[in-house]
């Protein structure tokens, strides 16, 4: 398990890690090097130099390396090294790409929790010096998890919940998601940042059905209410022992039975997948696919339900015509029977997807492999789940199983955006209006591939950026007639030298704004410029901030 200090200064968990180990990865730098000039320096690449210290002394043998970030995935690279006897490291020959510079030092945590992290935007010929990491030993929390009868519980998941916000609202610690008890019921979490925590095990809030394994969420030592939890205080290098949890048995265990039928004929529908959601609050749902299908009689069974309000509906494969509204039911203190889900043939929309703005064959091919998704614009949870369809070789599509009302169509593939919808030659508002069981034809979905980029630099008073300042850059695309849906706002990461880079942008005119402050509460200064972005190119911009000008609010 990897804990990572991300760019907002939050300590979060890297995704899809599989193992339980409390260790810290500090990400100090994002290297973005996508389209820089080619030339003789190309082979040389970038160089990083720095030092890893523990309490001011050089820490030898610490692993430092680059993780490549590509299409939102992380891939470790060969650019790895260990610190020498003095704690120094050097990484060379870094080719173009987007990276996180990472220290892997299990049990150690950053000495100073930064309000915002340092990022670096470099060109490949650059050398970055003094990219240093100051570490201290984190705390340890250990204890035993048992059931109400005192039997140890094996592979029980442990949750570490901050009992108060850390220094600054940015800092938040999450225990490694796979921290579990061993065969004796014992757990040991290390590398915990100083702070106050509540420790819990048992099922998650909102868990039900197959996810339930019979224990309520219980806080150390025996509290089922968070307010009753004993708070554990962790300081640098401390060890909190006997943080035991005796798990309370789950309440509930009720079942709900029902049938999925054809709403028109009343005939049972066998082999239909279904999903169920539990209302945590009136508007917040926790749900999952059950992974099973209805039997020959169209019957479904949901088990291990705790008291509460639920909603069940069908789950259909892509291109299916079937749809159903969510059917709500409530579990109080007995099994529920007779829940009827009526599935009907929904409305459909068919037409053609037109990719504009690129001749690149591989991008056209990627679009053919993508899926088209439709969901109700009414944001009405009772209207059933999202439906999808495949895209035909010739760009035509038919998406079915649609509810009546306003339906939003989107392409769920990296960098593809639906920028315009036409129906019968007329531009549509953000969504298309669908009547009950209407079969709409002749829809044109105009899609763009976002492959533009902006590279820029912010200059404060014509010099370097002072330490402990807050500098942000936001980008806002100004909508135009040809891409009516595509107005968007996003932020770009700015490094310690005021450089930033944003990629995957739709072509168009952008308003680029830098905001700057030395004090979060007052004295914000801003600078804005318009930049024209085209596909496959990098637009450059320089923003100048003058701190002598009148400050304003962010």
């Amino acid at each position, binding site marked *: 398990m990897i804990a990572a200090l991300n760019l907002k200064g939050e300590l979060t968990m890297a995704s899809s*890690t*599989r193992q*339980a180990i409390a260790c810290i990865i500090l990400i100090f730098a994002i290297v973005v090097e996508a389209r820089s000039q080619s030339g003789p320096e190309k082979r040389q690449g970038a160089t990083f130099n720095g030092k890893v210290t523990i309490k001011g002394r050089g820490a030898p043998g610490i692993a430092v390396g680059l993780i490549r970030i590509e299409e939102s995935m992380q891939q470790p690279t060969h650019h790895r090294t260990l610190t020498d006897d003095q704690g120094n490291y050097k990484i060379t020959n870094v080719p173009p790409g987007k990276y996180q510079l990472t220290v892997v030092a299990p049990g150690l945590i950053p000495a100073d929790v930064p309000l915002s992290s340092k990022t670096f935007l470099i060109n490949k010929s650059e050398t970055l010096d003094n990219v240093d990491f100051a570490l201290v030993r984190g705390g340890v929390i250990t204890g035993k998890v048992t059931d109400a009868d005192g039997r140890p519980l094996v592979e029980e998941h442990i949750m570490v919940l901050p009992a108060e916000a850390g220094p600054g609202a940015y800092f938040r610690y999450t225990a490694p998601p796979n921290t579990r008890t061993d*065969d004796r019921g014992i757990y*040991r979490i290390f590398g915990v940042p100083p702070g106050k925590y509540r420790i819990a095990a048992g099922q998650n809030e909102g868990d039900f059905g197959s996810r339930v*394994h*019979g224990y309520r969420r219980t806080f150390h030592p025996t509290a089922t209410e968070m307010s009753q939890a004993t708070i554990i205080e962790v300081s640098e290098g401390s060890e909190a022992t006997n943080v035991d949890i005796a798990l309370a048995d789950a309440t509930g265990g009720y*079942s709900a039975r029902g049938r999925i039928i054809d709403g028109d004929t009343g005939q049972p529908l066998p082999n239909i997948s279904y999903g169920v959601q539990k209302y945590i609050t009136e508007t917040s749902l926790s749900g999952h696919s059950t*992974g099973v299908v209805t039997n020959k009689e169209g019957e479904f069974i949901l088990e291990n339900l705790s008291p509460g309000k639920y909603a069940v509906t069908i789950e259909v494969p892509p291109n299916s015509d079937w749809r159903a509204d969510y059917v709500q039911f409530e579990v109080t203190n007995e099994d529920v029977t007779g829940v009827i889900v009526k599935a009907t043939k929904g409305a459909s929309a068919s037409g053609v997807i037109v990719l504009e703005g690129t001749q690149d064959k591989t991008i056209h091919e990627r679009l053919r492999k993508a899926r088209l998704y439709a969901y109700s614009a009414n944001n009405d949870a009772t209207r059933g789940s999202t439906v999808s369809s495949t895209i035909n070789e010739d760009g035509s599509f038919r998406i079915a199983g649609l509810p009546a009302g306003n339906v939003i169509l989107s392409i769920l593939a990296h960098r593809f955006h639906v920028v315009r919808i036409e129906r019968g030659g007329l531009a549509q508002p953000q969504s298309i209006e669908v009547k009950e069981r209407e079969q709409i034809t002749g829809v044109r979905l105009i899609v763009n591939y976002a492959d533009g980029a902006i590279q820029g630099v912010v200059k404060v008073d014509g010099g370097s950026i002072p330490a402990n300042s807050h500098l942000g850059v936001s980008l806002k695309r100004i909508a135009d007639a040809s891409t009516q849906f595509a107005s968007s706002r996003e932020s770009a990461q700015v490094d310690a030298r005021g450089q930033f880079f944003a990629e995957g942008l739709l072509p168009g005119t952008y308003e680029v704004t830098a905001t700057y402050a030395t004090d979060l509460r007052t004295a914000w200064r801003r600078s804005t410029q318009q930049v024209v972005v085209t596909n496959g190119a990098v637009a450059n911009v320089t923003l100048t901030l003058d701190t002598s000008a009148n400050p304003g609010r962010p």
Partner: protein
Amino acid sequence: MLRNLYMAPVLLLLIGLPVIGQTEAAKADSITGRVVNESGQPLPHARIAVSPFDGGRAGGQTSTDRDGNFKVTGLDPVPYRIHVDVPGYLRIGEPEPGQPVKQYKVGESATFVFTKGGVITGAVTNATGEPVIGIAVRARRIRDQKDQPITSTTYYREVSTDDRGVYRIYSLPAGTYTVAAGGASDYYYGAFGPFDTFVPTYAPSSATRDGAVEVSVRAGEEASNVDISFRAEMGRTISGTVTGPGTEGGFTVNLTMAGPAASQSNFSRYSQAGIPQFSFQGLADGDYYLIAQSHLQSGEVTLSEPRLIRLKGADIDDVDVTLKTLGSVSGRVLLEESKVTECQGKQPPAFKELWISAWHKDSEEARSQPPFVWSIGRPVNPDTQGAFTIQNLASSQYYFAARFPARSWYLKSIAIAPPAGARKPSDVTRVWTNIKTGDRLAGLIVTLAQGGASLQGQLALGEGETIPEKLFVYLVPTEREAASDPLRFYGGEVSKEGKISLFNLAPGRYWILAQQTSDSTSVPLTKMKLPDGTETRAQLRRDAEATKLEIELKPCQSVVDFRFSHR
């Protein structure tokens, strides 16, 4: 969490065994059961998953109650498999990978017995005696509980040390293990481990397998103080790129040390979708086989040609491999009915109960490939029309086999449609069939004939004699024209009670030979069925003829209480 990896050793027939129903109060649409430990104590909160054998039908998940009982309802009248998971425990009688999986039907009740697995624990320290924190520690099973070496199966579990350098690996099946710290690991998925560029150090402090201590664990027992002094020797890297069908959807790259240490040095890398690169760090110098694999949505598997990589003194960064579609063979099963009176009314085999399999030729080259290569071309059931396709056959020579439960039928012939110009289908029981990457062989005809006989018998013992171990009985055809027909040779091992049962026998005359063997690898049972088993068949025939014990089996005849003697 512990990670383990099973790889099935060779092509194994998966046979669904019929289950004898137990009578307990169970509703018509439910399966009930109980999970206990070896002394009968209930195990509550065991996770239960009931899923249909053929997929695509109603199933269910639940967990056991305080009394260890579970019940899954809303099921269809079809066979189900049940998966039970009790954290920290191992199932007694869990089928080995590749062994038949038990089937359950609605109304049945099942009991699962679990025992606590073994534990290996210790600490990892560096040269100065300080704890090594966050290092991956891997236990590999080298021998099973009967002390039989595990050669073709790779089985390991991996954990990481805590802030005191302590590791604890539990849920281990009984057997003998080696334990190593550092080196290529699965532990830090998506990032990198602090010690995965180092060569693994085997407990107590060896850079090679030869110096590794062998740790024996038994169920529920703990091997403690298995400490490791980490050597911190930098390893080498093998990396490269994968191309070909299946690259985009994600692939696995498998790296196996060549030679006898293969099952001890076997690593896998899983690609991240869209990134065609792979990399293995922390490798010791040596010879490795590298092979990439991908599963296509069609059910087909693509493989790269195994690549031998000699790692010596430097990283190798340019290993480019190409995934290719494997071979397949398709055909149909023909049923020939008999007019013999004794056979009238006997049920023909149902196609869905029939298993057709392809077996590769054992050779030095075949053994040099990772074992999984030979387990992906799984046996298949024909469809309702008797048609079948065996997919995912790696380049090799193959012979074919058919298994079915209908006792009054026998396997008469296996032939392949003739090449253009030729008339007769060619017999593939006496010659190996070449199948190469990308081949699509068609026209394999498996003929089953009615008239199968059976022979059940008892070993006759002399005064004071005991039933010998590893005693095998063979039926050898007496007819000259059948002298080397692999389909006419039958055999089986005599049970501890001295019983022998042979079914699906072709009618005809046979000599009966009972032969003891001391070396299990030299049993002619398999070799006599091979296309090139001519020598084995000739030897068996010479030995059998000498016994002068002859029997004629008539179509659909069922011989019971056959008495035979040893020697």
